[in-house]
């Protein structure tokens, strides 16, 4: 029998080790799996590489890990946040490595890892500092930049509903990076509002099919 639901954070995070690369869903606070991040914090995990659109916002999740100096590097599109000065502080002090990736390229690179794409060409960032050091190529008369897939040891995503097969739905714009990150984590852990019976999620409405999800934990 398949039962991906776990009932405690030790099970949800089994195998997570210092130095891991973690994808973290969310756009600002919407869709951010704060509880999984804080469980990692509580377990003393450190030296993390985080792949996330933002580098933290508010006072939960990534910001707490950042404050506790558990994060070595962040791959993101937009690290600044009006209410998370810690990113700026650590960056200015040279205590945080940042890799800035255009938002669409970030998302596409994550999807590429999940879809078995070895790399792709995009027009985004052509001629800008973010294309420096990257291969460029003329295709059909237009210049493109080569981008590589972005995978992770763990993907932490936040859904609305799940079932024991790991099927997920999301809530409104909190969907954001969840579906692509779920594809790209070696181990994908979903924090959801509620775990429902198998068959309760309409098969037409499954957004992330369970094949991409390894563990599900309900957090209220």
């Amino acid at each position: 029998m398949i039962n991906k639901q776990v009932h405690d954070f030790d099970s949800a995070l089994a195998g997570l080790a210092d130095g891991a690369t973690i994808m973290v869903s969310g756009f600002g606070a919407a869709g951010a799996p704060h509880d999984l991040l804080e469980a990692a914090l509580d377990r003393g995990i450190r030296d993390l590489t985080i792949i996330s659109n933002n580098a933290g916002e508010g006072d939960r999740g990534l910001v707490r890990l950042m404050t506790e100096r558990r994060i070595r590097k962040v791959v993101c599109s937009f690290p600044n946040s009006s209410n998370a000065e810690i990113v700026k502080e650590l960056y200015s002090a040279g205590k945080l490595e940042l890799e800035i990736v255009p938002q669409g390229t970030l998302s596409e690179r994550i999807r590429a890892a999940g879809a078995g794409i070895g790399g792709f060409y995009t027009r985004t960032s052509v001629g800008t500092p973010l294309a420096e050091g990257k291969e460029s190529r003329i295709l059909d008369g237009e210049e493109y930049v080569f981008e590589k897939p972005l995978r992770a040891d763990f993907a932490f995503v936040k859904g609305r509903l799940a079932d024991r097969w790991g099927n997920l739905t999301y809530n409104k714009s909190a969907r954001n990076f969840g579906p692509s990150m779920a594809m790209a984590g070696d181990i994908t852990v979903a924090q959801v509002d509620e775990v429902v019976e198998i068959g309760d999620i309409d098969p037409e409405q499954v957004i992330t099919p369970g094949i991409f999800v390894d563990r599900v934990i309900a957090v209220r």
Partner: protein
Amino acid sequence: MTGLTRPQIAWRIAQDIPDGAYVNLGIGAPELVANFLPEDREIVIHSENGILGMGPTPPEGEEDFDLINAGKKPVTLLPGGAYFHHTDSFAMIRGGHIDFCVLGAFQVAQNGDLANWATLDNSRPPGVGGAMDLAVGADRVLVMTDHCTRDGAPKLLDRCTYPLTGLGVVTRVYTDLAVIDIENDRFVVREVAAGIDRDALQAATGAELHFAEDCRAIETAPAAGT
């Protein structure tokens, strides 16, 4: 030199968005454009975090923080709207499906180059967000900006000095002083704010201006400007 207020610029931009257009409004001042879209047009607003058919700010107390715009402020969804994931959302942008985007700018060059994500100040971490994707992906890239910086330095230049967002992407610039098209690597002034003379406008600009033959005053809404 007093030109248009930000709401007046936003109103002016809104007049250029046709019925049926798919539009992405950048974070900050460009968001104001949504307030002035003509009511007889149906315009679909795209938000890069996975929304088409974005509606206005909800009444206080009815905010849903899972329904936010790219600026992370609560919004609503119009009937006909849809949610989708981030990669699909950027496929819309990068695949050329967005008709217009309105972006802010630090600098715009007469060849259409846009600089709007980083300055030469390295003390703050740079953040690019979706600006580079929008710059290359949207059919038409409209810029909404003050004509000069707070210090009075021109933002419309012969070439950008800040790190670029996109090369040759801007099609039209709306400032507090003028509406300026970019055509054949030149700034072509289409409209000038009331009370601004051409010499003053040129003095406030870091590149040569070309005045269209039918250059006229920028229209403002009777009720806007507050």
